[in-house]
């Protein structure tokens, strides 16, 4: 009896909240969804109503609120209660084979990914999988791992990371065209130039804390972009720089169509850009692995520990004789250098750079990947990059949606909308990101992961 009356009151509660949600969403959407503005033949702005669509929005809001209050929340609460009662430890010890060898399996998977896509989709068909998914995601993995050193380890909130990506890209684009230097000379040089800029920009601002640092880095990011737009004599402004030389196979084979030592000719393969993309895939994979290796190594060195200590408590660091300014600068410079490498790679992959690629949104996306993955965790960040970048790329492929919503439907429009929604949803449910715990860098008896609730996020 009691159970059913409980249930009834729960349903009444859910119905009430659903009505509130309907009313609120009606208010929220009446102007923006209920009314459509468009330009008529005379180019004058006119409007028409879209009550049907508005009704859909309101119904969706009401129904989902009903489900959340009536079913999902009680279910989650019950599960939490049961867990608390049973006292099940959060971490289970018995990892299966897959979990234990996750990294090895992932690496092997990545190594066989290009040949596999060639086999399954053909040489030309593999382009999409290798380039749009593989390379695209790996670039973001590398950028996010680079930013992770600054934000995740040292706890310095950088909202202008894309500036260093831009410095790397333009360094390669300009120097390769002006001086004809090869990719393999310019790759390290681009990284060094970006690191140099990291130090120049970092030096005055690194004594700022928290949000002030965030906003100054955002300002620097915008300044660099605006200079790229306006310094037309060098950067060609918004037109961008095109015809950026391709990377060669370590100088042995070229991927230029006309070159004598063309890779496809040398190997007697059919002409296709797929081989270049596959080469680029392995190149960015190698760069990612280098980033991961350096990060893992540095974490176990005094400098890496100082970064993490800095994130936890800057004043305590100073009391232990750590020069916090140089410590922050190294984090900033190394992060910038990785951004610079990624930028040079980006330039050679696209063959074209323009300021459009280095807007604030890019910084936001990279930062989002770092935070969603779980600050400091390489695995978590890689997963976040795959989910967020891969997921939105996938949307481009969803042609079948056109059959559902009509031929005017362009899934790409919804890409960033869904990206933003995903950012919000993940943060609300998992504020510490996918992997919230931290691996200690040294241990006496056993390596125990540190729960996320102990680690701090830095103050600047």
């Amino acid at each position: 009896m009691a159970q059913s009356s409980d249930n009834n009151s729960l349903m009444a509660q859910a119905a009430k909240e659903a009505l509130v949600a309907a009313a609120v969403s009606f208010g929220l959407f009446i102007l923006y969804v209920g009314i459509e503005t468009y330009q008529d033949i005379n180019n004058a702005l006119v409007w028409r109503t879209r009550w049907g669509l508005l009704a859909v929005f309101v119904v969706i809001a009401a129904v989902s609120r009903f489900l959340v209050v009536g079913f999902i929340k009680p279910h989650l609460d019950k599960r939490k209660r049961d867990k608390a009662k049973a006292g099940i430890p959060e971490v289970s010890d018995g990892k299966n084979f897959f979990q234990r060898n996750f990294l090895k399996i992932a690496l092997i998977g990545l190594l066989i990914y290009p040949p596999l896509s060639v086999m399954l989709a053909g040489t030309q068909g593999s382009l999409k999988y290798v380039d749009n998914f593989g390379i695209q995601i790996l670039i973001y993995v590398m950028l996010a791992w680079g930013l992770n050193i600054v934000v995740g380890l040292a706890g310095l909130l950088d909202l202008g990371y894309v500036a260093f990506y831009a410095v790397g890209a333009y360094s390669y684009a300009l120097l390769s065209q002006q001086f004809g230097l090869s990719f393999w000379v310019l790759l390290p040089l681009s990284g060094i130039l970006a690191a140099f800029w990291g130090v120049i920009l970092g030096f005055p601002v690194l004594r700022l804390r928290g949000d002030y640092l965030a906003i100054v880095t955002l300002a620097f990011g915008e300044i660099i972009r605006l200079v790229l737009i306006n310094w037309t004599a060098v950067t060609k402004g918004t037109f961008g720089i095109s015809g950026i030389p391709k990377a060669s196979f370590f100088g042995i084979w070229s991927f230029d169509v006309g070159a004598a030592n063309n890779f496809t000719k040398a190997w007697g393969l059919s002409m296709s850009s797929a081989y270049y993309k596959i080469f680029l895939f392995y190149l960015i994979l190698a760069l990612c692995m280098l980033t991961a290796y350096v990060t893992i190594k540095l974490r176990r060195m005094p400098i890496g520990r100082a970064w993490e200590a800095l994130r936890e408590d800057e004043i305590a660091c100073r009391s232990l004789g750590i020069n916090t300014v140089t410590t922050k600068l190294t984090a900033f410079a190394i992060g910038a250098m990785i951004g610079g490498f990624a930028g040079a790679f980006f330039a050679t992959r696209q063959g074209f750079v323009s300021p459009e690629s280095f807007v604030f949104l890019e910084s936001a996306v990279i930062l989002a990947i770092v935070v969603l993955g779980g600050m400091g965790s390489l695995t978590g960040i890689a997963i976040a990059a795959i989910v967020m970048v891969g997921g939105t790329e996938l949307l481009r492929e969803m042609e079948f949606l056109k059959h559902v919503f009509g031929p005017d439907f362009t899934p790409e429009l919804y890409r960033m909308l869904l990206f933003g929604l995903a950012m919000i949803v993940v943060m609300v449910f998992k504020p510490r990101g996918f992997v919230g715990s931290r691996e200690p860098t040294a241990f006496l008896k056993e390596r125990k992961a540190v729960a996320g609730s102990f680690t701090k996020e830095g103050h600047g």
Partner: protein
Amino acid sequence: MEYFVQQLANGLTLGSIYGLIAIGYTMVYGIIGMINFAHGDIFMLGAFAALIVFLILTSFFAGIPVALALLVMLIAAMLMTSLWNWTIERVAYRPLRGSFRLAPLITAIGMSIVLSNFIQVTQGPRNKPIPSLVTDVYHFGNITISLKQIIIVAVTAVLLTVFWYIVNKTPLGRAQRATEQDRKMAALLGVDVDRTISITFIMGAALAAVAGTMYLMYYGVATFNDGFIPGVKAFTAAVLGGIGSLPGAVLGGLLIGLIESLWSAYFTIAYKDVATFALLAFVLIFKPTGILGRPEVEKV
């Protein structure tokens, strides 16, 4: 000299709009210590609400007096953005209050992306132009000042006074200041913290709507991505003036407006935003608490 005064007037107008947006940033930052990145997009929503209401009004009441139309647009936009900001705070920010510091920031950035893309999807990506609402101009010698500019500056001055009064003289303002100082203690003393924070968001949104309506009236056009640049500049203004300080926000806004118009007038228009951001960097490096901000003592 006349040219200078002319630019001053233009800068003041632009600065008033930045200042109105900046107040929302500063109030939210003051009370929950969070950069509400989506605030610029709330401003954009306000401009769109005013735009849509304008279209409806002119198609039903062709001869409506401009003043009345503006008033209706203003009120509708304020209601709309208030509801949005209230909902956003409830749904996306409140669950994260007191958690990990970066989580609300990321959520706010996500919300900013969602809002601008939502308008892009529902209203289309193109510029939305409307006919000029207020066309009167006054000449003082060679200086031209339009009625639009006077309205914008006057509205800002009035609203600043009203908000300054609310924050400093009313029980609501006291609750806000108490919550700002120490949320837990305020709650223990009977301040309804949730409600106070909600009201702060609503107040910020209402001011952003005013800024949005003024922006639409001044430029006669709105786009889905109009939120970002004014948003960043308004945040810059808030930081410049000293975050948490209401007069500071307006002062910062005016400063940025002036720098922008003077820089464009005397140097090159191309680098006006660079000048703004460079100024921000300079101020933060040499006076990190902004012009009117309270100095922050490092506690050891």
